[in-house]
C-alpha cells in the first residue's frame, strides 16, 4: 500500500509515467555539452513538445526563439536564434544537452538551463521573489525535455 503511493507520487512528480528519470545531478555530458542518453529512456512526444515550447507557463522558449515556419506562435522573441532547421543542424544528443544545460554548449549564454537544480545565486521560489521553501525543481521535467527534443528534431 505504502509502496504504491510512493511510486505514484514519484511518477506524478516527474510529470508522467516514468518512475525513474535520470536525476539532474546524474546527467552525463560529452565534452561538447551533448547528452547522449535519454533522460527518461522513452521517446518524447513532439506534439507535447511543441506545447512545452510555446506555453508561457511551461518552457516559454518562444520568449526568446522564433520558428518562422510555425505561424501559430504568439509573440515570439528574438533574444535567441531562429530555430527553423535546427533538427537538421543538431543531433538529438546536442539538442538534449542544450536543453539540459546550454552553458555546456554555449559558454556564458543567456539561455537558462532547464534541467539543473543547484549552483544558482539567490534562487527563488518560482516567480514569487521569495526564498525557496525546499529543494528546487528543474524548470522542465525529464519527460518535458524529451518531448521538446522530439519536437525540435522535427524542424528540418
Amino acid at each position, binding site marked *: 500500500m505504502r509502496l504504491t503511493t510512493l511510486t505514484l507520487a514519484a511518477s506524478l512528480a516527474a510529470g508522467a509515467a516514468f518512475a525513474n528519470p535520470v536525476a539532474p545531478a546524474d546527467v552525463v555530458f560529452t565534452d561538447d555539452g551533448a547528452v547522449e542518453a535519454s533522460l527518461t529512456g522513452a521517446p518524447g512526444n513532439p506534439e507535447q513538445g511543441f506545447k512545452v515550447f510555446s506555453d*508561457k507557463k511551461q518552457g*516559454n522558449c*518562444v*520568449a*526568446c526563439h522564433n520558428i518562422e515556419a510555425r505561424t501559430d506562435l504568439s*509573440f*515570439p*522573441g*528574438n*533574444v535567441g536564434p531562429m530555430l527553423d532547421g535546427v533538427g537538421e543542424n543538431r543531433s538529438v544528443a546536442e539538442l538534449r544537452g542544450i536543453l539540459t544545460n546550454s552553458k555546456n554548449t554555449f559558454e556564458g549564454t*543567456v539561455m*537558462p*538551463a532547464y534541467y539543473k537544480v543547484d549552483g*544558482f*545565486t*539567490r*534562487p*527563488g*521560489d*518560482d*516567480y*514569487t*521573489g*521569495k*526564498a*525557496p521553501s525546499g529543494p*528546487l525543481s528543474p*524548470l522542465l521535467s525529464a519527460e518535458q525535455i524529451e518531448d521538446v527534443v522530439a519536437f525540435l528534431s522535427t524542424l528540418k
Partner: protein
Amino acid sequence: MKFKQMTAIAALALALPTLSLADADDDKLVINGELEMVTKTAAPAHLDGALSEVISGWHFRDDDTQKMQMDDFDNAGMLGVEAAAEMWNAVDGSEGKSCASCHGEAESMKGVRAVYPKWNEAAGEVRTLEMQINDCRTTRMGAEELKYAGDEMTNMVGLISLQSRGMPVNVAIDGPAQATWEQGKELYYTRTGQLDLSCASCHEQNYGNMIRADHLSQGQINGFPAYRLKNAKLNGVHNRFKGCVRDTRAETYKEGSPEFIALELYVASRGNGLSVEGPSIRN
C-alpha cells in the same frame, strides 16, 4: 528612376528582418512642444565601451505610449505629482512644519533629482531621494517615515524629479560614493535566480531585442518615477528592480535595501548625460 525606387524598396523589405523592428527608434522627445530632451547620448566613460550610446527607455515604447509623455495633459503621472504638491504644503509631525516651511516652493528642488543617489557627508552614506525625504520628515518635521515604495513617497519623488526635467543626469561615482558604486556594479553583472540572468543579460547584451512581447530597453532610470500603464500609478526605481530580479526566478532584495541603493547609484550613473524625464510613461 522607377526601377531604382523599386529596388530600393525591395532592398529595404529584405533588410528589415535583420534590422528588426526592435532597435531604438529615431523619434524626438519634446515635452509640451518646447522642452527638448536628450534621449540618446554618448555613453559615460566609466562604461568602458560596454555601450557606445546610452538610450532612454522612451525610445523602446510604442508611439501611443511615447505620445502620452509628450504633453503634460496626457501624462497620467502628473496626477501623482499633483497629489504630492498638496503634501508639499501640508503640515505634518510634531514640529508643525511642511516641506514648504523649510524649502519654499517645490521649484527650489530644481537640480536635485539629477544628482541623486548622492553621498551624504554627515550621515556617512549614499542616500536615495526617498531616504532624504524620510530624513527630512523624521529629523526636521518630527513626522512618520513614508513607506519606501508607497504611493505617497513615489509621488513626492515624482514632484521633485519634475523640477529637474530636462537637466542631464549627473550622479557622482567617485570619492566617498565609489565603494557603493562598485557594489552596485557588481550586483548589475551578477547573474541571479534559476534563470541565471543579470541586469546586463537583458539590458546590456539584448536591448533592442524582443523577449516575448517585451521590447528590451537599456533599463535606464532617468525616466523614474514611471507611470506604468500596467498598474496605473507612479512606480519607483526599487519597485522596478524588484520586478526584474523576481523575473529571473530569484529571491529579490527589498525596496530600500542597501543592495538596491547601491544598484540604483550604479544604474543612475549608466545614464549620466541623459535628461531627467520623470515622471515618464511606460508599459
